């Protein structure tokens, strides 16, 4: 079952903040976040393994609400380099990472 991401697209000016949400209809073992720039391979951002866990990476952080089967990615003080498509991936059974449909983030100067 594919996780659902929202919003589908976000347009920001440099320095603005954004939140991308990911929800699943199934219980989750873990949540992964990747960013893909046009024509390139997806690149790992972070993985959240426990309910309530929050992780940070520079000005990008994420939370995982295991009970609600949801995760959110927080982008603070966005930079031009943050532009790309963000995918959440959920693991509901051993070994199978299923990605959402993606959220396109565009950061303008």
């Amino acid at each position, binding site marked *: 079952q594919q996780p659902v991401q929202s919003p589908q697209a976000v347009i920001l000016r440099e320095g603005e903040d954004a939140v991308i949400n990911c929800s699943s209809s199934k219980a989750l073992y873990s949540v*992964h976040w990747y960013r893909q720039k046009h024509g390139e391979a*997806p690149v790992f951002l972070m993985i959240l393994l426990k309910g309530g866990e929050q992780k940070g990476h520079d000005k990008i952080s994420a939370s995982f609400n295991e009970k609600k089967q949801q995760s959110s990615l927080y982008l603070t003080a966005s930079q031009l380099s943050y532009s790309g498509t963000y995918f959440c991936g959920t693991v509901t059974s051993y070994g199978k990472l299923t990605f959402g449909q993606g959220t396109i983030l565009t950061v303008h100067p």
Partner: protein
Amino acid sequence: GAGVSQSPRYKVAKRGQDVALRCDPISGHVSLFWYQQALGQGPEFLTYFQNEAQLDKSGLPSDRFFAERPEGSVSTLKIQRTQQEDSAVYLCASSGYSGANVLTFGAGSRLTVL
């Protein structure tokens, strides 16, 4: 090697032809995944190997798709009798851990079926 290497990067096939896509994972990585990514979509899971064992092939769309990793390193995704709907980027990813953990993706093989 330093990263995940995929070949060919681009493949054009006529409908009905067979194609083989190769993936060289990071040396020593036990887990290997294949994904299919259509234009504007997220990667869709195809299959997962742990060493040479194919533990999950539930995402393979039909029996025309076959994947192998005979010695636990290089993997090949084979598509027989290609159809237009097979046109996509095929991504390979590897991980140094068992199961779905931090994945390093290759640049992908873009397949166009005419």
